[in-house]
């Protein structure tokens, strides 16, 4: 996840580069650091940079990292010839490299030549069984071919060895949600929250999943996780604030009449007032709309 200041810096550099000026190498470095996906811009300007021999010579040792970055961006934009050239340059410089071989595997993937890619990765894994990136290419291939079950199996196997890979757990949760295997997705979130208990986004993700699963217990739990996310994000996270309101309504609807346990409306009205305050400040033309919706929700809860 990218913070607000970094996002602004990225956008400024991107504007400069797109406008024809700007420091392309600096932009590429920031994209690498933040691990964002800006393939179109990276490919276009990265290739221009690499094809300009005087600019290229100023890059020093970074040039090889940039060749790799541009190759991947080009493949993402399906500019396969350009990608091949970059990989070729890397291959010439590093003839025995497994890292370059991995790029060649990705090239086969981009072409849709799954067999070639798979046999290349198998060979590489035989020599490098602990290379996590190779395992992940296999998972990516399964996903790209629409084999979500296969991707899930491969990810589970991967996590047996690389159990501290939070991104993989997060990805697995998403895949389970796509398959509507909510309990399994919940397990992934529980692992994430156990290992990173102060990460607001995991609490938020878990809350959204619990809400989707439905039922009184899950909705009440969702509300708790939304509340935790609000606390951890200093009351700034709009999804968590709205989530509290949605939970309130859903809980009332699920309970129906004859409820035995009274659910407090304090949290609901507090969240509501924070939301309205934010809208007044940043989105005044929707304040009436939001107030109307929140009022209806509050009334439904008290009634």
């Amino acid at each position: 996840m990218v913070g607000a200041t970094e996002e602004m810096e990225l956008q400024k550099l991107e504007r400069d580069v797109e406008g024809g000026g700007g420091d392309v190498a600096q932009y590429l470095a920031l994209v690498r650091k933040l691990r964002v996906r800006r393939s179109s811009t990276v490919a276009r300007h990265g290739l221009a940079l690499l094809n300009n021999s005087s600019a290229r010579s100023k890059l020093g040792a970074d040039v090889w990292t940039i060749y790799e970055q541009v190759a991947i961006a080009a493949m993402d934009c399906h500019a396969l010839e350009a990608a091949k050239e970059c990989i070729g340059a890397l291959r010439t410089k590093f003839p025995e490299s497994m890292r370059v071989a991995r790029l060649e595997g990705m090239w086969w993937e981009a072409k849709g030549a799954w067999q070639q890619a798979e046999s290349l990765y198998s060979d590489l894994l035989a020599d490098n069984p602990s290379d996590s990136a190779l395992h992940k290419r296999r998972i990516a291939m399964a996903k790209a071919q629409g084999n979500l079950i296969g991707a899930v199996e491969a990810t589970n196997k991967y996590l047996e060895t690389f159990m501290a890979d939070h991104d993989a757990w997060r990805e697995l949760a998403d895949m389970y949600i796509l398959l509507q295997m909510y309990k399994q997705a919940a397990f992934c979130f529980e692992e994430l929250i156990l290992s990173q208990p102060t990460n607001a986004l995991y609490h938020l993700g878990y809350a959204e999943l619990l809400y989707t699963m439905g039922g009184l217990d899950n909705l009440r739990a969702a509300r708790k996780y939304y509340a935790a996310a609000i606390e951890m994000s200093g009351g700034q996270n709009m999804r968590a604030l709205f989530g509290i309101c949605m939970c309130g309504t859903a809980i009332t609807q699920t309970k129906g009449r004859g409820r035995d346990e009274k659910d407090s409306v304090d949290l609901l009205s507090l969240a509501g007032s924070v939301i309205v305050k934010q809208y007044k400040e940043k989105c005044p033309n929707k304040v009436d709309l939001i107030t109307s919706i929140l009022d209806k929700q509050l009334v439904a809860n008290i009634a």
Partner: protein
Amino acid sequence: MVGSTRYEIAQTAYVKLVLHALKHKTSAVNGVLIGRVSGVGAGDSAGNESGVGNFTVEICNSVPFFHSHLGLLPMLELALTQVDEYFASQKGGLSIVGYYHANERFDDYELSSVARKIGDHITRSCPQAGIFLLDNRQLGVLSKGATQKPVVQLYVREAVRGWRQLAAGGAQNAELVLKEATANSILSDYISEHREQLVVDFDEHLDDISKDWLNTNLFD
């Protein structure tokens, strides 16, 4: 009982939804279609509920919703509530009359269960609602030259067989037309200008509420 429904989509709605998909090339996207339904249902005098009859679904706008976590409920319900409430408060008798979806993968032409579920939900308040699935093949054709065919596939809900694609061998009792003949050429122009970068969806609004999901400036 056989009726027929004509779906007419205005270029505002059409261009916006395609640009939304193009802005987020690497993920699935979705949103709703706004408009009005007119026409006569068969058996109206008896209190028509089957939705069978001759209808025109006029789609004049679209609201882009999400480009991540399409299968999760809370923010979807919030978005539907806000959109419902907004258009109800405006003059013009507009409401949600359809749903659009673009799959994550280029060669995936299946209507996913997420899309079907959301479509089902919308048909509860608008029985003639259609699902519009982005057709990547057609979009590819568009980039190579002019075509009058819309780059979306229409799915309609039939009573027994559920969601069926409007195609030979599929649903027969519906037609999809682009309201303006200029729709595809405007779309092509906007794509070459990279206007998709200007599209704001509900996801982005939630991350920064100063961004407006109404996209009022998109067609300036």
